[in-house]
């Protein structure tokens, strides 16, 4: 019986999968080209693919865009690492020990709904418009999410694995170190990957206000000059960096945790 490829959950061969993924990128650019070169949209509102690329080259050669990219990456990674270094141990402690969870969880659940971007005016007041303020936005945006997600992952450790460890002579500290940590590690790494993606959205918001450098600042400057080509190139740059870090993270996780079944 020949079944349609639209049978629910029917797997796809890798070649077809990649081809379909690329096909959409091609279709997207084709539509963009048609809209701009075909005159559907005025160049004032939307630059053509060609002029976006030209704008990009100009950005690198004349405006030192590479430096803006480096600054933005440093802000994301810096703020994110500070958040992770505190959030992961705290989340592990909350997941493993119920009193710690009872103490922190209600406040963090509340704080997680405070929008990071809404803190920008306050943070400028407190920390000025320097790097500290940018890192603080990333920190607020990722810290509370990370803590809660790590706590849930660690708290969901299978109880029968914990019991098996006890019958093998493990003490409570050993349960955390030798069972809960290795068990949660791949999912924590996956959470870090996810939240790093969110951190990228916060950094751009932070750079739109009170910044002299960075990709977000460049986009803001381009708006004043009505240079849609540069704006689009900036946005695409963020997308490409996000995609690349995501792939690197995935590959690292796959190598670090060969036992983990990503089903």
């Amino acid at each position: 019986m020949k079944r349609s490829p639209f049978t629910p959950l029917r797997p796809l061969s890798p070649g077809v999968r990649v081809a379909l993924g690329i096909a959409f990128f091609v279709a997207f650019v084709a539509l963009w080209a048609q809209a701009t070169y075909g005159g559907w949209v005025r160049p004032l509102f939307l630059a053509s693919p060609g002029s976006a690329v030209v704008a990009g080259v100009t950005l690198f050669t004349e405006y030192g865009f590479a430096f803006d990219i480096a600054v933005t990456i440093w802000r994301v990674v810096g703020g994110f690492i500070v958040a992770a270094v505190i959030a992961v141990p705290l989340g592990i402690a909350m997941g493993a020990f119920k009193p710690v969870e009872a103490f922190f969880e209600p406040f963090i659940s509340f704080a997680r709904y405070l929008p990071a971007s809404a803190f920008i005016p306050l943070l400028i007041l407190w920390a000025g418009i320097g790097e500290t303020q940018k890192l603080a936005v990333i920190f607020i945006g990722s810290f509370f999410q990370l803590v809660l997600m790590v706590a849930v992952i660690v708290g969901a450790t299978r109880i029968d694995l914990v019991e098996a460890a006890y019958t093998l002579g493990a003490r409570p500290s050993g349960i955390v170190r030798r069972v809960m940590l290795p068990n949660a590690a791949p999912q924590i790494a996956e959470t870090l990957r996810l939240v790093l993606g969110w951190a990228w959205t916060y950094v751009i918001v932070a750079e739109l206000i009170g910044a002299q450098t960075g990709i977000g600042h460049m986009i803001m400057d381009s708006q004043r000059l009505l240079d849609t080509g540069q704006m689009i190139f900036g946005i695409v740059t963020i997308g490409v960096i996000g995609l690349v870090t995501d792939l690197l993270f995935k590959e690292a996780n796959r190598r670090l945790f060969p036992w983990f079944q990503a089903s």
Partner: protein
Amino acid sequence: MSKLAIRGVTRVFPGVRGRAPVKALEPIDLDVADNDFICILGPSGCGKSTLLRIVAGLAEPSAGEVRLDGRAISGPGPDRGMVFQSYTLFPWLTVRGNICFGLNEKGLSKAEQRARADEFIGRVGLTGFEDHFPRQLSGGMQQRTALARALATDPELLLLDEPFGALDNQTRALMQELLLGIWEAHRKTVLFVTHDIDEAIFLATRVVVMSARPGRIKCDIPIALDHPRRYTVKTTPEFAAYKARLTDEIRDEAIRAIALEA
């Protein structure tokens, strides 16, 4: 003095939302001699696993006490190795890594851990699979690893909670022979919980039958089949006689257990 002494152990689960508390275990008294292989046989929900968990120290009795070699049990410890019904190998450790887990807690050097792990891997017939992760193993191989892991730390008492319950019939029969062979060769005091009558007769030196909830010991039958036992013992008249007797005992309880659930 008996190896393991269970004295007046009861277990009552508190009632949920104003309902009456549930009695899982009536006062249980049981003595186990050194190197005995005891099968605790009972219908599902009779509290036999609860009793085993109390001996393991993973659950607290509501009253009574359990003594191993005269010392009261107050929590889980490596002197009581356990194999669970669910697959409890640590998925991030290889077969060898899993078996080394308890040896590491005991403070053995890396070289000693490795040598001892490989010895027990051989004993359960998994030589060649040392570096496999649990997800690469069949259910039977996972439970063999779990058995090796529980035995490697040389516990005073081996506790098995329906360890072959999730396996298919053929694998299960082979696992029983493997376990019995290890017991015959190395001796160990064993408490084995099951609801399978054939399994109980084949393995045990004594079968303890438990009643439906609240669980109590209904009868205690020594199995006088010669050792070493081969699988062919299952078709002998002696085996059939034990089976007829235990089937009667357990059938009444199963009927009561079903009535309780309804």
